């Protein structure tokens, strides 16, 4: 078992360097620091998760790394390029429902290839392959409105994978899924990631998911979003969802939860205060 773990272990060369990134929203008294001096590296082929309570700035960080939020302090480097616009080798999977309602499943998945001008028959073939991979082969001709939320999210994942990005960024891609689907799709993602030796950054608020999938976990604080701790997950690879039952797994979950609990309860207190403010105002 342990001998296999070398397959996907990070090589020395970092694929991505996040250095002292700061992002503030608003101005004047209402300024919100969403991301506060965040630094970490992601090595080639490594699977890193960023975990933190809702509202701690994870999506903001995701958008910065994806190049959709060009205006930030510090630097995100991929190769020797500072990211300020979407990078061709990066693929993004969004937290929100993001399929095109006017395209069928296969047309959705083929979208990036269409932008690149890939010939129709080839892009259909390639789209088909990835639709198969996420288990939606029999729904190719359906429109997203005919699918469940979880299936739509799988369509988005396939759409991102189809252009075979070297670096995969995912923002809570499994948030809309039930626990079982989440575990199984997690297996799929690990499998694909190992196959393609993809560098992956997963944003999540789900502990199990993070430990199941990652080589390292970046734990963030709640507001301002800082890096609280980085945890190495030394669980054997290849991994499947079976690992969830193991002792080592439980140990990691408990350890990270310890860090996270404090942050999460701060977040909860905050949102409760906000809710009571709202109701007081009518």
């Amino acid at each position, binding site marked *: 078992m342990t001998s296999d773990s070398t397959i996907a272990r990070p090589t020395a060369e970092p694929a991505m360097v996040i250095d002292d990134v700061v992002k503030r929203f608003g101005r004047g008294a209402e300024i919100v620091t969403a991301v506060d001096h965040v630094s970490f590296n992601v090595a080639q082929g490594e699977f890193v998760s960023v975990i933190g309570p809702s509202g701690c700035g994870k999506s903001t960080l995701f958008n910065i790394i994806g190049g959709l939020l060009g205006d930030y302090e510090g630097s995100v480097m991929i190769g020797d390029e500072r990211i300020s*616009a979407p990078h061709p080798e990066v693929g993004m999977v969004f937290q929100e429902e993001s399929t095109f309602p*006017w395209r069928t499943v296969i047309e959705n998945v083929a979208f990036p290839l269409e932008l690149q001008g890939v010939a129709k028959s080839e892009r259909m073939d390639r789209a088909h392959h990835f639709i198969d991979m996420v288990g939606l082969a029999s729904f190719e001709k359906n429109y997203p409105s005919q699918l469940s939320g979880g299936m739509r999210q799988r369509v988005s994942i396939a759409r991102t994978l189809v252009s075979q990005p070297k670096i995969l960024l995912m923002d809570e891609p499994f948030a809309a899924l039930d626990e079982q689907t989440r575990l199984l799709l997690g297996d799929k993602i690990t499998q694909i990631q190992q196959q393609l030796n993809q560098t992956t950054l997963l944003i999540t608020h789900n502990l199990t998911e993070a430990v199941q999938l990652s080589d390292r976990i970046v734990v963030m604080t709640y507001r301002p979003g800082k890096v609280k701790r980085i945890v190495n997950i030394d669980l054997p690879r290849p991994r499947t969802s079976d690992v969830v039952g193991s002792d080592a797994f439980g140990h990691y979950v408990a350890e990270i939860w310890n860090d996270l609990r404090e942050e999460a309860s701060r977040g909860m207190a905050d949102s409760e205060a906000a809710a009571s403010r709202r109701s007081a105002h009518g």
Partner: protein
Amino acid sequence: MAATGQITARPRPSVAPATGGAASARAAMMLRVACALVVFGVWEAVSRSGLFYGEVVPSLLSIAKAFGRLLVDPVFWKNLQVTALETIASLAIGAAAGVVTGIVLGANTFLMRAFEPYIYYLSPTPRIILFPVMIMWFGVGPTSKVALGALSAFFAVALSTAAGMRQIDKILIRVGHSFRATTWQMATKIYLPAMRIPILNGIRLGMGTAIITVLLAETKLSNQGLGYLIMQIYTRFDMPGLYALLIIVFIIAGACNALIGRLAKEQA
């Protein structure tokens, strides 16, 4: 801001009751036929009874005859052509101006806040009262009808396009950028398909008001067009003819409405 003052008869999926689909569809059809028969029966009875003065409620047969007479009358077809041309011209002008305005207002928050309230609140005002002004500007000929029709269509199309532009799911735009779509690709593959339905809906509503406004303007002051024909028949007190012509106009308006509605519903 949702479009006010617009027709609410949005086609909605008919909710089939839990009990037997096909059987109740047949029952509904039978009930519908029965209702129609009752209406016709009562109508005919009232007509025979002579309860109303003169020909106010003419017999169904005489309406049907008038219907047939109209359809073979070249005068009807000539006037229909005039109205159709006026409506098409007004819709083309109004919709083009409306789409451009809608895109500008939808894309720019500043302009939206500056000018959209005017369009929004003017849109449900009775347009026909602007007819005297249109006559002063464009004379008594077809131009004044086209102008008034274009003005009516403009509001619906502009509001609907602007709303469509704003309602585009922001995430889809981010998806486009994340795949590094060019400006042209963004326009053709994301904005246009996402806005097709609101634009077509705006055109459908705009066409409805354009038809009504053009016809009303013709009834007020004109020497050609179906509106003019309605007034002619009214002045002659040809009640069967009036019923027949109004039915034809309602059918044409309904058919145009259904046609564009169908286009908007097609796929997706």
